[in-house]
């Protein structure tokens, strides 16, 4: 049941329609940033207002929602967004990637492969991949219009010249559908390959900048690189201390006050599922 006094999904129908129009445009032009008139959300910017606006506009009564923050379902941010939607839509929520129809995320893509029919909604703090290189907004728009992305490669060149490799571990720039340069939001570069030809629909919402963009199912997403310095998704060279995974993206956590550390999966659902399977097998 929806809590009394709220429209389904909190936003009024006109706002949702307007955001859906922006989403349709975004899906039609993969990777292209579409402006939208954001309605104030009951959260400060930085708490995922763009993602919330997108989720609110696509969610329906039959959906099941999962919300993750850095891969975890149980952080304050993830919990409060999940509760918010449970309250204003009455839809069921889940922590299981496989059971969710909509997954709103901050900074990660789940390890479990997404499938057709699912929607991954990213919270985006800064949608413009060129903003550090070209501060003039009009010029970045022109660069997108002309697919003039040499400057991004200059940045990669500079990294290799200085560090011997591309020193971007989060928000690693990608080219979508061979056309638009796109910020994947601050997911680890490790997650970039998961975006490529993903069967699920990927939607991106930036609240402060009021921009929406999208990657439709099965669209190519390539990480920029050089022929002789190919893109390499990096992960800590260790198994997960809890589930033993050697494939998942790991967080390094401090375990005591003597500097003890261990590596565990950042995707809590993936890790818990593997631990359960392990126990069952024993």
């Amino acid at each position, binding site marked *: 049941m929806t809590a009394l006094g709220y429209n389904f999904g909190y936003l009024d129908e006109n706002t949702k329609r307007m955001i859906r129009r922006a989403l349709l445009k975004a899906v039609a032009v993969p990777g292209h940033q579409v402006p939208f008139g954001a309605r104030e959300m009951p959260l400060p910017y930085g708490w995922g207002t763009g993602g919330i606006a997108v989720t609110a506009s696509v969610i329906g009564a039959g959906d099941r929602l999962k919300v993750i923050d850095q891969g975890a379902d149980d952080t304050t941010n993830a919990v409060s967004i999940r509760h918010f939607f449970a309250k204003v839509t009455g839809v069921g929520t889940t922590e299981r990637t496989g059971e969710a129809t909509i997954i709103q995320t901050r900074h990660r893509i789940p390890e479990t492969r997404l499938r057709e029919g699912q929607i991954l909604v990213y919270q985006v703090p800064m949608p413009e991949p060129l903003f550090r290189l070209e501060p003039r907004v009009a010029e970045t728009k*022109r660069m997108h219009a002309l697919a003039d992305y*040499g400057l991004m490669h*200059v940045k990669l*060149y500079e990294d290799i*010249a*200085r560090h011997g490799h591309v020193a971007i571990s989060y928000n690693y720039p990608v080219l979508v559908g061979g056309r638009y340069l796109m910020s994947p939001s601050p997911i680890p570069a490790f997650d970039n390959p998961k975006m490529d030809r993903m069967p699920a629909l990927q939607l991106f919402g930036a609240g402060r900048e009021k921009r929406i963009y999208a990657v439709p199912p099965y669209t190519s997403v390539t990480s920029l690189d050089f*022929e*002789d310095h190919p893109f390499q998704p990096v992960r800590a060279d260790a198994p997960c201390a809890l589930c033993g995974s050697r494939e998942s993206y790991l967080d390094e956590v401090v375990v005591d006050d003597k500097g003890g550390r261990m590596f565990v999966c950042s995707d809590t659902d993936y890790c818990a599922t593997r631990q359960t399977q392990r126990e069952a097998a024993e």
Partner: protein
Amino acid sequence: MSALLEASGLALRFGAVPALDGVALEIFPGEVVAIVGESGSGKTTLLRVLSGMMRPEAGEVRYRDPEGGLHVVHEMGEAELRRLHRTDWGFVHQNPRDGLRMRVSAGGNIGERLMAVGARHYGNIRAEAAEWLRRVEIDPARIDDMPALFSGGMQQRLQIARTLVTRPRLVFMDEPTGGLDVSVQAKLLDMIRALVADLGLAVVIVTHDIAAARLLAHRLLVMRRGQVVEQGLTDRVLDDPQHEYTQLLVASVLAA
């Protein structure tokens, strides 16, 4: 041989000021043409109009591509013009800061045009950048230095390297030695002359320095109040100026 660039009937006013008034010219492959004239005579405006950076009120500029196709510069799309400016054309600004990225290393500055036209092999880009540093007499060991660490003359040479790396056939230069000490100017002019001869470049160079024009240019155009008052082979114009304004210009240099 057909012209690389042809312009006819160019006119442009700023309010009551006729910055260009019926200017016509042709630039042939491998030819260096200097545009001289006092400050405010319309030299920079002419360069900006010829290179498509500014639109004239009347007249037309036509560019011939390497396959012989003729294009009206101000009818080209923005993408096409941008591409032209990075491939077959180059523009060297008076102030190197306008032509360089000051927060990008020397190597990155030279590599930018290569990457903009699709170069994706780091090692090749770097080797090409090092080679161009050598050509403009900057120690290739400084390939990772920021331009701000370079002297004014070095910055200007870096700008030239960055411009020439894609082997343009036509380069526009606006007072390239303008802000430099006299001794540095002489060295830079020598280098430009050698590069131009080596690469067979066509150059349209704006200068108010008659000596520089004599050193570099095959042909000279003398501008005054937006009009070309005299043009011809450099030696002819300077040794036997016909127009009284040119005579004044040459005399003032000889007197100085």
